C-alpha cells in the first residue's frame, strides 16, 4: 500500500526537487571550496551522516503508524503470521527509503561524473553498495527498535551516536558488529583504490549479518509482544 502511495505525481515532483537540490548544492560547494571536497561530502556527510539518521527515522514509521492509528488490527486479524507482517513492514519501509536514497545517489553520482571525480565503474559500484548496505542495515535496526518502543527515533539516534561508535572502537572482533565501523574502510577504498576483499567483501557480509540479526530479533518481539493501540502509545 505504501508503494502505491509512492506512485503519484506529487512524489515524482518531490524526487525531482531533491535531485536538483543535491546536484546543485554539491557542485556549488565543490566550486567554492579551495580543495576537492566531493568525496568528503558524498561519503562522510551523506553515507555516514545523513543516511543512517534518515533510515532510523523512516525505518519503523510504517509499523509504528499502523500501531499508533490502530489500523494494524485489520492486519493482525488476517490469516498471516505476525512475522510475515513484520517483514512486510520492513520491505515497504525499505522500498520508500531506497527510492529516496536512489534519487540522492543518482544525483551525487551524476554530479561526480560531471565534475570528473568518478573515473571508474568500480567507484560507482562500491558507492552504491555502501548506500544500499547503510539503508538495509539502519532500516532493519530502526524497525527492530520500533518493535519495542514508539520512541524508536530517540533510541535509534542513541544507538547510532553511542553504541555504534563504542562497539566500533572495541579491540575485539565484536567491533565488526558496528555498521559505521565496517563502512568507513569500505568507503575509503573508493579514493584509495584498494580492492582487497577484506575491505570490500567482509564489511558487506558483516553489515548483512547485523541486518539479519536485527530483523529476526524484531520479528520475534513483534510476534510475542502485545501492543496498546492509540495515539502516542
Amino acid at each position, binding site marked *: *500500500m505504501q508503494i*502505491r*502511495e509512492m506512485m503519484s505525481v506529487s512524489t515524482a515532483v518531490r524526487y525531482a526537487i531533491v535531485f536538483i537540490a543535491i546536484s546543485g548544492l554539491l557542485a556549488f560547494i565543490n566550486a567554492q571550496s579551495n580543495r576537492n571536497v566531493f568525496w568528503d561530502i558524498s561519503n562522510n556527510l551523506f553515507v555516514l551522516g545523513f543516511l543512517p539518521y534518515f533510515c532510523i527515522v523512516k525505518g519503523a514509521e510504517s509499523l509504528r503508524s499502523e500501531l499508533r*492509528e*490502530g*489500523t494494524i*488490527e*485489520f*492486519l*493482525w*486479524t*488476517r*490469516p*498471516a*503470521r*505476525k512475522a510475515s*507482517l513484520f517483514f512486510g513492514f520492513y520491505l515497504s519501509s525499505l522500498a520508500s527509503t531506497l527510492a529516496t536514497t536512489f534519487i540522492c545517489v543518482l544525483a551525487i553520482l551524476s554530479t561526480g561524473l560531471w565534475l570528473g571525480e568518478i573515473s571508474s565503474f568500480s567507484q560507482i559500484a562500491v558507492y552504491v553498495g555502501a548506500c544500499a548496505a547503510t539503508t538495509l542495515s539502519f532500516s532493519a535496526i530502526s524497525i527492530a527498535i520500533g518493535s519495542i518502543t514508539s520512541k524508536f527515533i530517540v533510541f535509534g539516534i542513541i544507538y547510532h551516536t553511542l553504541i555504534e561508535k563504542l562497539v566500533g572502537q572495541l579491540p575485539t572482533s565484536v567491533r565488526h558488529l558496528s555498521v559505521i565501523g565496517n563502512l568507513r574502510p569500505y568507503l575509503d577504498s573508493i579514493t584509495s583504490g584498494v580492492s582487497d576483499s577484506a575491505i570490500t567483501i567482509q564489511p558487506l557480509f558483516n553489515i548483512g549479518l547485523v541486518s539479519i540479526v536485527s530483523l529476526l530479533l524484531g520479528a520475534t518481539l513483534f*510476534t510475542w509482544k*502485545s501492543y*496498546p*493501540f492509540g495515539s502516542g502509545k
Partner: protein
Amino acid sequence: MNAIIEAKELSCFYGIVLGLNNVTFDIEAGITGLVGPNGAGKSTLIKAITGQLAPSSGTISVLGANPINNPSLLAKIGYCPEREQIRKELKPIDWLRGLASLSGIPWNETREVAEKALQRARLESTHWGKRMGTYSKGMKQRVKLAQSIMHDPDLIILDEPMNGLDPNGRAEIGEILKELNEQGKSILVSSHILHELEFLCSRFLILNWGRALASGSQIDIRETVTEWPDEIAIRCNEPVKLARHLQNQDLIRGFLADDESLKLWVSDPESFFANWPRLVSGSGVEIFEIRNQNQALTSTFERMTQ
C-alpha cells in the same frame, strides 16, 4: 447445542487491569448481540476471540480451535473493529485488495472480491474512486464492513458497527447482517444501540465489569431477572385515580403518576395481566395504552447492569 464460541473460566488482564474475570459462556450459531456498558469487557472479549489477546487463565475456543497464533482460524473469521481509523490516504479498492491478498486471495482476483464486498456493504460505486480520508463516518463503516466479509468468513465479528450511521444506515446494516445470517454466517455484534440489536439478534451475551451476567435468548435472560418487579406504563385519563384503585387491590409494589400517564411496578406480571380486565373495569378510568416496559432489551440490560 451448536456452540461456535466457548469460553471456560476465561480471564484476561492488561497488567493489573481487569478485562475479563472468570467468564464462562457458549455462543451458538446465528446472530448474537454482545451487550454491556463501557468498560464491561466487550472489546477485550472480541480481542480474545480474534486471537489478539491471549487469555491470562481459562480457555477460549472459536469454531473448535484455539484462536492464538492460528492463521487458519483467522481465515474463517471476519472482523470489523470499533475504531474509525482506516488508511485515509488510500482508495477503498486499493485497501481492500491489500487486505484480501493477506487473506490468501490470489492478487488477480482481489479487485473483483473487493468490488463485490463494497457492493454488498452498499457503498455506492461513485465513491470508490475517492480517498477514504474524505469519507463520512457512515461510508467508513461500510468499508470496514466490506473488509470483514470479503473473504467469505464463517464467523463475522462486528464491534459497534452502527456507530456514526443514521437510522436508514443502521437499518441497511441490519438488513445486510440478516442476509449474511441467512447465508449461513454466524455473527457476533456489539452495540450500544440496544433497540437495533433487539430486532437483529436471536441471542445475547450481557457483560459488566468483566463478568458474563447472562447469555441466551432475550426470554431466557429475562427469566433470570424475575426477582425484579416489571415496569408497566399506562396512558389514561385519570392516572392518580387508577393508581389508588390498583393499590387497594394489593397487586402493585409502587407507582409514579403524572397528569397523563402512570408507571407501575408489579411483582407478579402474569397475575396482573390475567386480572387486568377485572381491575380496570371497576376503576371507572379510561385506558388509552398499556405497555410492559420490561419486554424491551434496554430494560433487561439496565436491570442486569444496575
